[in-house]
């Protein structure tokens, strides 16, 4: 007995020493944490080599897009033999998207990026028998993958008859001939077929109110099931094995989006399959094979998965075990739902694509998203909370640069676009780029962000320049109060709505930021409103609620639009504008910059004539971020 007691005492003291030793090592390693080497702009922002992985319906081939002579082309790799094929050889334009139409056929299209000059092709997996499907110019095609894979026909939604309306066609893959199956009465925006390739559901929209239509098997007439407006959500997921029942994502009569079962004849919600009291369900995976649900995903604050399907739950656990607990996203699965393509990621790792076989649990790496990023050099993204001026708790993510401590740091505020989008815990090239340059990066899920329920989202309505901006400002002040930020070295960078926020911040908080960057930021809400088909009455109502009425709310819209507030801007700016941006008018931005420069405000103004709202060309993108790098370096690395 005594020997055991002695042993225990000895063990305890040993453990004490050991833990002390660990603490020591930890402290040493912390204090010695080195500033990582500067990673080049190209490394962060170059286009991925391989992307858009898919698996053939029979699970025998993997397909992906890869650059060939500077443009993305379609490639197929056999899983059973070493054979690989290049399906397309376009040198003028990239393959925009593709689709496995059957076990042997692939459909793919290219366009000029602005969905102009659209061309559709069909090929066999080895690249042979390519036919160009004849379409009227300016026609667009959407894939409806609801058909039997072994058949020779496929369903497509094509707007050939009327550019506004997509009709359903059946396409013969061998001949390229298409037959009109379902004519659009004018308001249908989406068609959903059942496992037999019969169109059974449709979503109609007047732009604001979405109505779910359903018809029984063999019936002609669609009946409306339920409507949801822009405030509510009702999104069909798939048919349930129960007659006349479907799965849907709905927040009708509740605040958070939940997975429900809906009776299509009565329109009643018959069952709540999964509901999280704090967060919206963000995505749901559906199994066509068994007409059941696989899993539902929400973020609290990291990605969490609720499994309906036991086999997948085990499979994910197995994958997680094999991949040191990285986050997993299901990308594609084959018809038998035995072979998966997944993508992993963490906050520091853009991740990789893997092929996983559910039968033998074999995991095979396909490609890294960005093999040049070394996760060990990247920075940790931390979830933070603060109280805004109205006492509401606002969440966000804070990424601190490595080896620079956690006090008095230069900070880049990076508001997300949308505003009805969200910041997630994941790898972001922008965040890691700024952190690598030695800046802390702060992302805020301000009011109006998604994932926190309907009422939180609604607080962003017609509050683009009020509630939303207040939350950003409060977040910045919180960072200063916590002594994380050096109050004299705070910058703000945003894309689209984020750019609008950046400009709004410098208009109404001229002393808070040393500089700001607007990447396609909205500068005029009148123009933004004009971008919607405003003659459509329902749209008008929606916009009145979401943004404001251009005739009744002139003062508010003037207040919100940076283009009217040039006299208040004193902060140096970097502005990027696409010459063909439909959302932000080039000549308006020119005028805006002209006035700012007249007021002696430093503006680094970059216009890329051929680009739209988003930087698609790699060279232009790298140039822009290089300029941002220099610009921020000038203001954020100034000695105090």
């Amino acid at each position, binding site marked *: 007995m005594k020997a055991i007691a002695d042993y225990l005492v000895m063990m305890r003291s040993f453990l004490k020493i050991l833990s002390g030793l660990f603490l020591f090592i930890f402290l040493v390693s912390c204090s010695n944490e080195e500033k990582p080497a500067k990673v080049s702009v190209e490394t962060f922002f170059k286009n991925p080599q391989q992307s858009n992985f898919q698996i053939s319906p029979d699970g025998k081939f993997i397909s992906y897009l890869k650059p060939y002579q500077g443009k993305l082309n379609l490639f197929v790799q056999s899983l059973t033999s070493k054979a690989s094929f290049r399906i397309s050889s376009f040198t003028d334009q990239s393959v925009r998207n593709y689709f496995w139409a059957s076990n042997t056929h692939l459909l793919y299209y290219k366009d000029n990026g602005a969905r102009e000059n659209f061309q559709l092709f069909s090929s066999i997996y080895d690249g042979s028998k390519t036919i160009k499907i004849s379409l009227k110019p300016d026609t667009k095609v959407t894939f409806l993958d609801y058909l039997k894979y072994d058949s020779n026909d496929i369903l497509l939604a094509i707007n050939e008859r009327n550019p506004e309306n997509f009709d359903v066609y059946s396409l013969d893959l061998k001949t390229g001939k298409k037959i009109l199956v379902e004519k659009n009465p004018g308001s249908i925006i989406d068609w959903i077929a059942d496992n037999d390739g019969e169109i059974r559901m449709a979503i109609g929209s007047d732009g604001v109110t979405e109505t779910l239509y359903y018809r029984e098997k063999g019936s002609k007439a669609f009946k409306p099931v339920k409507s949801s407006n822009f405030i509510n959500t009702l999104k069909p997921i798939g048919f349930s094995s129960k007659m006349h029942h479907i799965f849907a994502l709905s927040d009708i009569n509740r605040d958070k989006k939940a997975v429900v079962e809906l009776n299509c004849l009565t329109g009643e919600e018959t069952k709540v399959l999964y509901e999280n009291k704090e967060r919206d369900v963000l995505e749901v995976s559906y199994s066509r094979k068994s007409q059941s649900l696989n899993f539902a995903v929400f973020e609290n604050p990291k990605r969490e998965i609720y499994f309906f399907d036991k086999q997948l739950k085990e499979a994910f656990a197995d994958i997680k075990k094999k991949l040191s607990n990285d986050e997993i996203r299901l990308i594609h699965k084959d018809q038998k739902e035995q072979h998966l393509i997944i993508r992993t990621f963490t906050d520091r790792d853009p991740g990789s694509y893997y092929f996983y076989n559910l039968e033998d649990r074999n995991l095979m790496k396909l490609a890294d998203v960005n093999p040049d990023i070394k996760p060990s050099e990247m920075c940790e993204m931390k979830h933070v909370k603060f109280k805004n001026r109205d006492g509401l708790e606002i969440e966000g993510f804070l990424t601190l640069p490595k080896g620079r401590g956690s006090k008095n740091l230069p900070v880049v505020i990076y508001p997300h676009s949308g505003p009805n989008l969200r910041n997630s815990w994941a790898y972001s090239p922008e965040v890691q780029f700024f952190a690598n340059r030695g800046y802390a990066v702060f992302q805020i899920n301000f009011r109006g962000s998604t994932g926190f329920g309907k009422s939180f989202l609604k607080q962003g309505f017609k509050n683009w320049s009020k509630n939303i901006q207040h939350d950003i400002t409060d977040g910045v002040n919180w960072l200063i109060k916590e002594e994380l930020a050096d109050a004299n070295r705070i910058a703000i960078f945003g894309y689209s709505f984020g750019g609008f926020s950046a400009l709004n911040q410098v208009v109404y908080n001229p002393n808070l930021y040393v500089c700001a960057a607007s990447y396609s930021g909205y500068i*005029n809400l*009148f*123009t933004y*409103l*004009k*971008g919607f*088909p405003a*003659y*459509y009455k329902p749209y008008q109502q929606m916009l009145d609620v979401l943004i404001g009425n*251009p*005739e009744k709310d*002139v003062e508010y819209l003037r207040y919100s*639009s940076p*283009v*009217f507030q040039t006299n208040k801007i004193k902060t140096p700016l970097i502005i990027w504008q696409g*010459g*063909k941006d*439909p959302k932000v*008018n*080039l*000549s*308006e931005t*020119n*005028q805006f910059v*002209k*006035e700012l420069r*007249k007021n002696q405000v430093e503006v680094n103004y970059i216009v890329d*004539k051929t680009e739209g709202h988003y930087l698609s060309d790699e060279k232009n993108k790298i140039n822009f971020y290089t300029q941002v790098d220099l610009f921020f370096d000038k203001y954020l690395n100034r000695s105090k």
Partner: protein
Amino acid sequence: MKAEELRYRKNFLLIVVFMVLISVSLIVALFLGYNFTRKYVENEFSSNKIEVLEQTLAPFNTFFQNTVPEVSFYQGYLDSTSASKYADSVLQQYRFVERIIFYDAEISNRPIADGLTLGNFSLGIKNVFRYGRNISKDSIVIFDNSNPGGLSLNNAEELNKAGLKLGNYIEQADTTQALSEETIFKTFYNIIPNRITYMNVPRREEIKVYKDLMLKKLPPSPRYQQDIFTFELNPYQLVIKNPHPEIYQFINIRKQSFDPILEKPNLLTTDISLSGPFADYKLYFASEKDFLIKEVGRRFMPIAFGVFFIYCILALITFLIYRNLNINQKLFKLQYDFINNFTHEFKTPVSVIKIAGNNIKSAKELSEREKNHYGKILDEEADRLNDLMNRLLSFTQIENRAIKLKNEEINLEVFAQNIIDSFQIKYKDYEIDLLIKGVETFKSDPLLLGSLFDNLIENAYKYAKPGSKFLKITIYRFRKNIIFSFEDKGIGIERKEIKNIFKKFYRIQSQYNQQGSVGLGLAFCKELVNFMDGDITVTSKPGIGSHFKITLPYDK
């Protein structure tokens, strides 16, 4: 080439010529300066008008470049309330905008009662409003489409022009390209005298739609909002900014046809045309001739002063050079005299030696007395030569600070008495009194001090009439110094000469120094005293006597 003649040259003529030349230059410079200033002011009168134009038109340019295009920012959404707000801010800010007419227009392919129709494309009018400073509330609305057909031709004119320009553009618009600034200016602005009409620039997407409306047969389209503004301008309300009130006495805005020559012939005038909507007008500048001459004078003053100042400096330098040359000439003369004297001085012992040598050589036999006699003569004269050379040498050495000062304890009583004794042996009629008060010894170089005593005692004897060869030497301490005072009853020194006596080679011309003097004595003394960190002063009254006072530091 003839070798340069080395002789002393006169400079007076040169200096006179130089002075005349710079004086002439002064006059020429003043004359040219005045003329250039006049030309410059005249030039400014015609060139500074651009600056006036720029400053006067600055508010208009802001209006034209910023305020007018602001209409586009509203994307056609302006209605009576918001347009009136905009118009009020314009009217308040810019006095030269007299009146604003706002056409709330809409574009569609529907038939319209009032407006402009081009094929299927129609530019209809909803309302027309008029805003101005003195427009009563009820006359703001000049047209309302609830009362169709009521649009007067006058009011429709600007609208039609704007509509035609838009239609013309849309017909051939390249909707794949972004609108260039040039196209915008050509299409959406209409500028005529005193009036600017502007239509908000639609986005690329609208232009596409408008093009379809015009060229295609489509079902009745929605109505697209366009805002058209006409700004009526009054150039006389432009606030003239005169940044050069010293040049332009009057600036006005006049019609292009205005010609003032007939009215006031004595007026200097110029003008510059306004542009854009003010092309019918010009800025008219005028100044009276006297006003400009005054300005020329004002600008010329500093130039004249500067030139004159330089002239004065040149004159001063010339004077200084003249003075230095004069001094150099005197010095040259002094040195010349010195060499003369010195040669003379050397000559005496040398000739004595020569005579003695000759005598010895020609004598057949020398008696003991003769041998002694000649030996003594040779010895004495050699000593005298040696002494002369030593004196010359030590003087130059002291002047160049080339010797080292000894520091020996001297008993003053013994030291002074020895010197006095030797003089009294030499000059039987010399009476010297010595008085030493409160001091016994003094640390110094006995040789140098001896030289001082020798020189001053010798001088006192030399420059005294027979019978009054008397010297009183007093040595005493005064504060931290020791003072050697030499008071004689000699001929004294004229007041004007006193400042010269310590100079090298200077000798007072008198019967007393015909020989045996080189004019170095007092200069030598001065150098010695300076070398010993002391001072020598003199007070003197001609005919009564001189009093030399040497002050040397006692505690070193």
